[in-house]
């Protein structure tokens, strides 16, 4: 714990801190470009210069200088001021003066810092360097003349993403950032370099020239494209969501966001259901709300009602539908659309118990049936961190390209019961062993086998719970907490032959099995569910309603409404409330607050933000016989839900990055 002084104020900093971190602890702002908390230290922008005694009588780069006992650091001296002015002048020598046409304008580190620390005018009257544009794929727009060579993007792709896509070619003044042979960046987190870029060299291609940051309304929300529940900020103008950016939450997404979560926004305005539709003579025809509710009233299903929840619905919607079904006398609720039927009596057995932050500390990890990069890219980042710290990773399932060293144990899930010796030795020796069962594993009895595995290798020990289930759907844990699970899965619903099926944005269900039912689809996109429906009621997407989401580690999080739903679409709970009237029953709430209060009264854990806590793991079943070949459910990582499928950006990502189609670039 070295003691030092910053601008005359004495303070103690943690061992291993840098001078820059010491200055921050003292409340001093240090300008920087290349330094980033989550990346390795490069020390090449020189913007963080400070004066340090003892040491050479010159300014030193604080980001790369360890804080030591007795240092006297000045951040306010004349030397520091002149050094910053000098560095800034050098950086601006080759930086174009195109702020008015630059998308980074208004949220540009270079702009802000040159205002705060620059000298106001340039003395440079030679020609500026110009750099040709580099193609980086459909998501990242490049204007490489603006690049100041901080190498954050290079370090991100190498250290966090783990794919070595981006590099710095040539040298000195001619250094250029590029992907290999200007190929598209294909990693599922590639667009995070847009946030990392301190200047306008890497900007968002779909968002190019759309808006200025000060025009946007910023709403705090939760990503629903997977079950990680990344914290996001929805930037909207008027009635349109223009972009989605990640928020910092060290427990969940650190400060990254998947490309899918970030760029599905243009799907929010396309293929939207903006008026009710009724199936008349086998064909969907536009209707009014009154006609739609009249049609629902005519169904008169009695208690023969089932509710199927989709992957992106919030807890309030599911609770409102549960109340409606309950008022009609039914408890046929299911959210696992594709037919999974694992046991949900103890939620600890279907939860990511280690937590995302905790899995970083695991030292032996067995992944059973999960293509983590597709299903939870941000968890993969954590696994990479664990592997970098020395964790041994084993995977049961078809091979996929891991971003860390991993051993594949074959496609057959039966291998869990008779592990190769090296694997069992690794788990016996491990101090913090963990298992992660994915959806494909759960489909083949992976959860029961995993519980047996957890007992055998004592995955639950003092301060450590190594049993994890990695879900893919954002609604899953919330749905399970609200009872959206039948013992036999969706097969039970099919067997019950309900007269009316209420589908809450459920687009992955095989509706051919419900041929005898009236299907009322409440959702926001004209996707597979709406195609099969008899009554389509237009509802709100996740940006258009307040909602509670529970991520796969059982973390309760709240999202806020950013914009209004388009056209005649309404928030889901109001539709369900009106349906109750049409069906002549009472659900017991008339406002969103009353609904939420009723939900919290029934499931108190949904009332507090943070980990819900499901208690101890159940005992493993006595006889476990996992068998079958694992097959990952996600065939196309960019088109996994209705919003993505409607999004031109995601369609192009799918076509170009996964299926190798080429697109001609329009000249600017």
């Amino acid at each position, binding site marked *: 714990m070295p003691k030092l002084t910053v601008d005359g104020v004495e303070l103690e900093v943690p061992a291993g801190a840098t001078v820059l971190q010491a200055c921050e602890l003292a409340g001093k702002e240090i300008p920087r470009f290349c330094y980033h908390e989550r990346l390795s230290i490069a020390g090449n922008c020189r913007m963080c210069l400070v004066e340090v005694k003892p040491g050479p009588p010159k300014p030193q780069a604080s980001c790369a200088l360890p804080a030591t006992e007795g240092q006297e650091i000045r951040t306010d001296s004349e030397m520091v001021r002149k050094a910053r002015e000098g560095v800034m002048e050098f950086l601006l020598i080759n930086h174009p003066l195109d702020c008015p046409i630059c998308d980074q304008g208004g949220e540009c580190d270079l702009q802000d810092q040159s205002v705060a620390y620059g000298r106001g005018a340039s003395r440079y009257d030679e020609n500026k360097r110009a750099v040709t544009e580099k193609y980086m794929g459909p998501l990242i727009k490049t204007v490489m003349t603006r690049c100041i060579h901080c190498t954050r993007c290079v370090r991100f792709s190498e250290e966090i993403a783990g*794919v*070595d*896509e*981006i*590099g*710095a*070619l*040539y*040298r000195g*003044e*001619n250094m250029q950032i590029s*992907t*290999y*042979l200007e190929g598209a960046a294909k990693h599922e987190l590639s667009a995070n370099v847009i946030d990392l870029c301190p200047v306008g060299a890497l900007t968002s291609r779909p968002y190019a020239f759309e808006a200025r940051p000060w025009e946007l309304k910023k709403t705090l929300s939760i990503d629903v494209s997977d079950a990680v529940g990344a914290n996001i900020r929805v930037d909207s103008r008027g009635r349109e969501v223009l972009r989605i950016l990640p928020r910092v939450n060290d427990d969940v997404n650190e400060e990254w966001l998947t490309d899918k979560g970030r760029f599905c926004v243009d799907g929010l305005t396309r293929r939207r259901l903006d008026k009710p539709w009724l199936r008349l003579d086998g064909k969907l025809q536009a209707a009014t709300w009154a006609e739609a509710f009249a049609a629902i009233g005519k169904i008169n299903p009695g208690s023969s009602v089932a509710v199927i929840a989709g992957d992106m619905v919030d807890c309030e919607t599911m609770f409102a539908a549960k109340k409606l079904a309950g008022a009609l006398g039914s408890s046929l609720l299911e959210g696992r659309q594709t037919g999974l039927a694992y046991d949900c009596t103890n939620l600890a057995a279907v939860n990511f118990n280690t937590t995302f932050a905790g899995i970083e500390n695991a030292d032996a990890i067995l992944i059973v049936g999960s293509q983590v990069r597709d299903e939870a890219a941000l968890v993969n980042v954590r696994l990479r961190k664990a592997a970098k710290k020395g964790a041994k990773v084993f995977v049961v399932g078809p091979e996929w390209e891991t971003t860390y060293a991993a051993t594949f144990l074959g496609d057959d899930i039966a291998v869990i019961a008779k592990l190769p010796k090296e694997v069992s030795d690794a788990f016996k020796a491990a101090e913090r062993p963990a298992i992660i069962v994915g959806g494909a594993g759960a489909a083949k009895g992976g959860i029961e086998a995993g519980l047996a595995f957890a007992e055998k290798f004592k995955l639950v020990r003092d301060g450590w719970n190594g049993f994890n289930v990695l879900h893919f759907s954002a609604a899953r844990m919330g749905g399970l907490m609200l009872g959206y699970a039948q013992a036999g899965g969706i097969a039970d619903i099919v067997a019950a032959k309900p007269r009316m099926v209420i589908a809450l944005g459920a687009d992955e269900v095989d509706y051919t099995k419900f041929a005898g039912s009236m299907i009322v689809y409440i959702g926001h996109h004209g996707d597979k569910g709406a195609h099969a429906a008899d009554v389509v009621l237009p509802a709100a997407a996740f940006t258009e309603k307040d909602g509670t989401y529970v991520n796969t580690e059982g973390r309760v999080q709240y999202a806020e409404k950013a914009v209004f739903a388009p056209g005649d679409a309404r928030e889901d709970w109001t539709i369900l409330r009106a349906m109750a009237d049409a069906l002549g029953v009472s659900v017991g709430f008339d406002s969103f607050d009353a609904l939420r209060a009723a939900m919290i009264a029934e499931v108190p854990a949904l009332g507090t933000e943070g980990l819900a806590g499901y208690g101890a793991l159940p005992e493993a079943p006595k006889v476990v016989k996992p068998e079958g070949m694992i097959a990952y459910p996600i065939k196309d990582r960019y088109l996994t839900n209705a919003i993505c499928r409607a999004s031109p950006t995601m369609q192009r990502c799918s076509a170009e990055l996964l299926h190798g189609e080429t697109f001609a670039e329009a000249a600017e």
Partner: protein
Amino acid sequence: MADRHPEPDSPELRARWGGFAFTPEWDAKAKEQIAHYPEGRQRSAVMALLDYAQRQVGEETRTQGWLPIPVIEYVAAYLDMPVIRVLEVASFYTMYNLQPVGRFHVQVCGTTPCMLRGAEDIIMACKQRGMAKGYTSEDGLWTLTEVECMGNCASAPMVQINDDNYEDLTPDRLDAVLNALAKGETPKAGTQEPGRHTVEPSGGPTTLTAMVTENHDYRGEW
């Protein structure tokens, strides 16, 4: 140097170099280089391997050699490292040629000491022979590059042609060297100044004069 870029990736390039592999001789050398480093650190040998690859390409094309994209990829695969990291190295160091060169790669030093001693005349002499900076002459014999300091300042100006340095040049002496090379002869490398051996002071030594012919113990004179 600003114009440096890899030869564009094309089907012809792939067809010509896609099957590149080290010959047994170069392969043995490459293995030896890798053995210099601990296991798992084989990437450290990347610079040597790029050089070997370039030399092997040179043997095949009878030039100094260069690094086509497929060859860079071969080296990356050989060392089990991301190809972008290899390209970074190959593009950083100017001694790796990213584009084909002629039979003789004439690298004229234009840095200050050479410039003061007449490098501009040397470049002009090259241009008069039909060379142009960054281009290979039509007969495929010459490629002219202006480079930065080669460390021969004491015998400036100098050119480096393939693996040899030619120093103390004048336009006439350069012509003599280039004519000899064109004829297939091997001119004397090093200084072209008559009577000079290496980089000793021209006009004879000015210090340690007693050491010229025999060993001399200066210690008593200190």
